[in-house]
């Protein structure tokens, strides 16, 4: 069931669209790959002259719940293209954006420059803005597949880089260097498809604030997001693809910053998480609040199942010994 995160009139439009079906034959023709996403490296297609539909086909996606077969994000590209070309977008841009700006209780703002429009079973649609007056300090290799269409008003220049094919992206490594793939222009109407764990886009600052519509898979294919310095392209840090893990990390950081030593038992409990990202966040948080307990956890982490935790624990123990 699609969850509609849009004002009522758009909700109605989508509800109508949910009755629209693509033929099963067409559906079968969509998937042409040997493994999930592996042949879907960066590509760009022009929306072109697809005929605008009065009802968007995105409702079709809500019907894909057959647990007996795997559903791939890229299988739905034609449906997304129909969605881009449908009256939904036109109507939304004509009227609903103004409504969003004036509605007191509109709370679907993801950030100051991104608004979520639709959330489906395995994807979300949002509208974002590339600012004309801002330089971005980092570029990111995302953990989820996504595609974006340039809504204008400016065309966009972008450089595409790739993670080297022999790199194991599941382990963060600062020695990795991006390889340039191409430089191209994304004209208004162009769709860019970005493959998780592979493609890294660097948009050149546009002359005017320029809007993009994003469709992002909600099923990450990689455990980590890699953040690179936008200038040097060197890896800076990684974050978890799992929103819950990132939130737990942030929550424990708050406890540290507010000196909640009494919360140490709960944080120690988080050090037993299945997620190595959470385990390390918990260990380092305890270390900040109680050196004795933190050192005890560090010693235990030398045998952690994840090499990043083992390496970080060894380095931290060396630092602690040096400080003492």
């Amino acid at each position, binding site marked *: 069931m699609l969850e509609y995160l849009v004002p009522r009139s758009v909700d109605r439009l989508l509800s109508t669209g949910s009755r629209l079906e693509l033929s099963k034959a067409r559906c079968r023709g969509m998937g042409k790959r040997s493994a999930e996403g592996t042949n879907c490296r960066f590509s760009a297609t022009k929306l072109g002259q697809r005929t605008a539909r009065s009802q968007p086909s995105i409702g079709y996606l809500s019907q894909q719940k057959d647990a007996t077969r795997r559903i791939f994000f890229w299988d739905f590209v034609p449906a997304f293209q129909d969605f881009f070309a449908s009256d939904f977008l036109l109507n939304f841009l004509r009227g609903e954006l103004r409504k969003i700006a004036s509605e007191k209780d509109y709370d679907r703002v993801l950030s100051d420059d991104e608004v979520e429009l639709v959330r489906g079973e395995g994807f979300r649609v949002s509208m974002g803005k590339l600012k004309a007056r801002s330089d971005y300090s980092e570029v990111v290799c995302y953990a989820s597949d996504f595609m974006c269409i340039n809504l204008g008003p400016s065309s966009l220049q972008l450089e595409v880089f790739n993670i080297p094919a022999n790199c194991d992206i599941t382990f963060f490594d600062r020695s990795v260097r991006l390889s340039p793939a191409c430089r191209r222009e994304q004209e208004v109407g162009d769709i860019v498809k970005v493959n998780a764990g592979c493609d890294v886009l660097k948009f050149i600052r546009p002359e005017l604030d320029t809007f993009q519509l994003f469709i992002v898979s909600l099923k990450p294919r990689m455990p980590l997001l890699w953040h690179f310095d936008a200038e040097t392209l060197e890896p800076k840090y990684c974050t978890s693809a799992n929103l*819950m893990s990132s*939130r737990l990390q*942030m*929550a424990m950081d708050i*406890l540290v910053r507010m000196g*909640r030593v009494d*919360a140490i038992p709960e944080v120690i409990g988080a050090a037993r*998480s299945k997620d190595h990202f959470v385990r390390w966040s918990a260990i380092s948080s305890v270390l900040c609040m109680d050196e004795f307990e933190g050192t005890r956890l560090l010693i235990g982490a030398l045998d952690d199942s994840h090499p990043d935790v083992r390496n970080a624990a060894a380095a931290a123990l060396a630092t602690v010994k040096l400080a003492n």
Partner: protein
Amino acid sequence: MAITFNSTTTDQIDLGDFLELVDVSGGEMIQDVLISHADHLRMLSNNRQFLTDIINKELTDIYDFQPKNNYTAQTIMLGGVSNKFYVRANVW
């Protein structure tokens, strides 16, 4: 346009009291109603425990941490009344 209040109260209230005060103050959360709670919000912010209390309590089950929170990782949902208002903490 943002409105700035210079509340100087040093009183403190709990999150539960704050939510109740907002809930009983009006049927519709229009701007004037919200403005009337500026002092209460300051009282809540004077309480240096409530945010970490919530985090600490929820950490007891890390696999059920903020289950209904669809915002980014920097947002902690604190509570509210369905279809009326909610309170959240953002960390930047």
